[in-house]
């Protein structure tokens, strides 16, 4: 079956991480948009996602990796430093956005590389 080609744990994990990175960008965008909204609490990826992904990768079961879904949650560890109860810090968000952008570049290049090698294996030609 053709699906077997795309069922390697590494490839699936890279895809899931890319999903998570894109979702995280959305969370950071939302945090920055609500920089001055009174009472807003910052959101981020659910902290357990990383551990779940690692566990699923360790088991090597493609089904288990595929069934993972990154979600967002209110960041309970963030402290509101202003009196209006808003827990967003611009510097932290911008730094995390930059980190996230690097992670995105890494994941897209990983996926591209894997697809390229797969094609090379099929055609026997250097792409």
């Amino acid at each position, binding site marked *: 079956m053709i699906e077997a080609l795309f069922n390697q744990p590494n490839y699936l994990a890279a895809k899931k991480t*890319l999903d998570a*990175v*894109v*979702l995280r*960008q*959305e*969370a*950071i*965008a*939302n945090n*920055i*948009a*609500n*920089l*001055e*909204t*009174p*009472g*807003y*609490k910052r*959101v981020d990826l659910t902290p357990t996602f990383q551990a779940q992904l690692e566990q699923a990768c360790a088991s090597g079961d493609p089904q288990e990796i595929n069934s993972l879904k990154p*979600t*967002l*949650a*209110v960041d309970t560890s963030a402290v509101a430093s202003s009196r209006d109860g808003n827990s967003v810090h*611009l510097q932290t*968000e*911008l730094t995390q*956005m930059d980190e996230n*952008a690097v992670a*995105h*570049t890494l994941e*897209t290049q990983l*996926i*591209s590389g894997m*697809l*390229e090698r797969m094609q090379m294996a099929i055609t026997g030609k250097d*792409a």
Partner: protein
Amino acid sequence: MIQILTGVDNSAAALTAEQTRLDVISENIANANTTHGVDGKPYQRRVVVFESALQQAISSDGSVQMSPVQVARVQKDDSPPIQVYDPGNPDADSNGMVSTPNININEEMADMISASRSYEANLAVIKNARTMAMETLSIGKH
């Protein structure tokens, strides 16, 4: 519709909100010396109040709902007008005191800088989303 640029709707809403804030600040600065409005009273300082359209509703599957920011209202600052001694002014009372708007230019300037920094931050997010989308679109290209 496919969302290629994730999260930019919220950033765009934030840009609009910050723009409104800048507009209100410029109105305040422009009227810093308006002692006689249409109602005969000195101009009152305006303040923008932001709110999240959805107050971070947590949906049934435990995920957090995104909440675009919007301007809730433009509120009047009810602090009393500043009294200035200027007997030559047509708006002066019998003691020569004029009620001038409750506007502190320094405060407005600081607020303006804060608003434009927030605007820039949201622009940076949009640029970043665009870069990420371009990278995603180039998967598999070599």
